[in-house]
């Protein structure tokens, strides 16, 4: 039966259903509600776990690393500055091939200081060697959180579940929470074969010289590519259990005859769905890139079949370069017959609202003869006079 829950509360309940033995976190907006809810579940005896309220995100990531290596399922959550403070540990966790789940309540990165949503934080650590799954809505956040533990533990890779701060974390939506039996049937108890044990001592995190380093990195790379299969399997099995349709890698929504596609990650997908209903005159296929790491090249190509124009929306900037997602999409589509032209825009940075009216502007932008990366929702009034002339103006 659907219930109305705040995104953070729903995520906390989903985490609790997975019964982590150790949770460590440090508060940061907009992640705070998740950890507060977990704390109250622990306080009420509804979740039996060690909640370690650490002194920094750097330690939060380090605590869950230690806990997972000592043989316990562990979970953490953070955002923005917290992701950056963790970044050294994030690379370390994945390099050690430690299964962990973390929620990233996506938020802009300072400066300028902003507590509001974009995806600069998770994009900044896109090459940290974690699986990154983006959620379009809170039901997906619940389902993805549960799947994430199984994916992580089967692949011996950490999974970052990315949910847009405020837009999802602080929004009440009707959603289904699974039963404990359902989760138990899907997610076996935590088992880490390399767990540290005095009866079978191993050394982890040793120095690796140039004679082995490349091979270790290559194995990590291949493990991420191979994780695609587990992401697909987890979605299929969870879908069978909960009865909800789930697209594991790329969700394509729209008519097969559509020539125009718009691709995004996260909650903007819902906005675009609403907008398409409002401006129904052109057939448009909406794509949600759920799995950004591993980057699902084949699934993306299949989802783009028949498109001649593809608009890629970024929720982050790579200053001085092309779009982050756009570049990867372009590279994935390169060389295939009838690949669509890729138009690339940043939108909704630092919590700027993404209104329905963005939709017709995106459709208009595809007529640009030489598509280049730009920020589509710039307000020229707030640029200094000189930049007003050269700044990317809305098409």
């Amino acid at each position, binding site marked *: 039966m659907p219930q109305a829950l705040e995104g953070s509360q729903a995520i906390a309940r989903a985490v609790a259903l997975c019964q982590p033995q150790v949770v460590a976190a440090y508060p940061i907006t907009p992640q705070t509600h998740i950890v507060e809810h977990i704390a109250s579940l622990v306080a009420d005896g509804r979740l039996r776990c060690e909640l370690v309220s650490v002194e920094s995100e750097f330690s939060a990531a380090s605590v869950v690393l230690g806990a997972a290596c000592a043989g316990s399922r562990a979970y953490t959550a953070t955002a923005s500055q917290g992701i950056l403070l963790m970044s050294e540990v994030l690379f370390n966790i994945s390099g050690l091939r430690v299964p962990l789940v973390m929620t990233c309540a996506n938020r802009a990165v300072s400066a300028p200081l902003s507590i509001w949503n974009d995806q600069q934080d998770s994009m900044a650590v896109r090459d940290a060697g974690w699986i990154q799954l983006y959620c379009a809505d809170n039901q997906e956040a619940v389902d993805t959180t549960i799947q994430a533990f199984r994916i992580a533990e089967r692949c011996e890779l950490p999974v970052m579940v990315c949910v847009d701060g405020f837009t999802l974390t602080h929004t009440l939506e009707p959603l289904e929470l699974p039963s404990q039996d359902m989760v138990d049937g899907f997610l076996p108890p935590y088992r880490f074969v390399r767990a540290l044990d005095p009866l079978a001592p191993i050394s982890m995190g*040793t120095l690796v010289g140039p004679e082995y380093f490349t091979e270790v990195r290559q194995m990590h790379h291949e493990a991420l590519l191979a994780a695609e299969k587990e992401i697909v399997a987890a979605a299929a099995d969870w879908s069978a259990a909960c009865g909800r349709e789930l697209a594991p890698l790329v969700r394509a929504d729209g008519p097969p005859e559509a020539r125009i596609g718009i691709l995004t990650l996260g909650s903007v997908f819902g906005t675009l769905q609403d907008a398409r209903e409002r401006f129904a005159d052109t057939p448009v296929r909406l794509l949600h890139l759920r799995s950004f790491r591993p980057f699902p090249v084949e699934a993306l190509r299949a989802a783009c079949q028949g498109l001649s124009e593809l608009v890629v929306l970024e929720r982050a900037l790579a200053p001085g370069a092309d779009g982050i997602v756009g570049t990867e999409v372009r590279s994935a589509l390169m060389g295939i017959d009838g690949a669509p032209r890729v138009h690339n825009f940043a939108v909704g940075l630092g919590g700027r609202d993404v209104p329905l009216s963005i939709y017709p502007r995106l459709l208009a932008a595809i007529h640009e003869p030489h598509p280049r990366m730009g920020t589509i929702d710039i307000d020229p009034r707030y640029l200094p006079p000189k930049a007003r002339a050269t700044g990317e103006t809305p098409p």
Partner: protein
Amino acid sequence: MTTETLHDLRGDQPRFQGLEAGHRACQGCGQALAARLTLEAAGPDVVLANATGCLEVFTTAWPDSAWRVPWLHSLFANAASVAAGMEAALKMQGRDVKVIALAGDGGTFDIGFQALSGMLERGHNVLFVCYDNEGYMNTGVQRSSSTPHAAATTTSPAGVARIGKRHLKKDILSIVAAHHIPYAATASVAYPTDLRKKVRRAIQVDGPSFLQVHAPCPLGWGHGGELSIEVARLAVQTGLFPLIELERDVLIGAMPIRRVRGIKDYLRPQGRFRHLFADDPRAREELAHLQALADHNIEVYGLRGDRPDTLDSEGADTVHRGGRHFA
């Protein structure tokens, strides 16, 4: 007693070797010896979290490892937090395994300081052992906040305008003890029996405990590897490195010194203090300064004793524990 019987007696005393021979430490490395002694006393039911530093590097180079106990190296700054996570997990699993964090002075006094403080404050059942060789040795002997005043390192060289490190050695033990943890102590590789005893005591604590082990680095300190024990002993006998124990920030024991040595005896064999023996008024001033620091330690910890000095590991067991606060 013949050599033969002595040998037999030793054979009868099985010692657990958590850190095997064959690692790549320099000859006379104090830290290598100190880590071996720590593991001997701790026994096999431990899990280790090792910070980046010499110890981590010289004990493991894939595919070799000198460790016979479960060991994890994550990063330079996070040994205390990784250990805290291990402890939380093992506690939830209901397992009786002691978690020990190992770090150099850099991983303790400096970059690992915040994580250490957090772990202590949260009361994790973790023993944190700092191998204090008074500098960043793994990266080529740079100054740390543990480097003694006036010592030369590659980032605090002595020259016409500078006399070595300008600042004081951070009093980490007092800072750690100020967390009011159940047990905090200093130890030295020159007193192995005392060191083992302190490890055993720290292990038994149900909560955070801390050991700062003075561990000479022949490479960084500029003395022969064969002098490591001698140099470490002189640090204690001059009062520059007092061996003390604190429970919840209260001094409960100090190793007394009967014949206090002048600091020059300690400084002279070490290249890092060579510039202090130049005919230079600044050098004389710094020598006086260092002597004052040693005298201060002797005074505040009540180190002057009237029993025979402890000279070796056998004697250290019979050490009279006392000190002014204890009396």
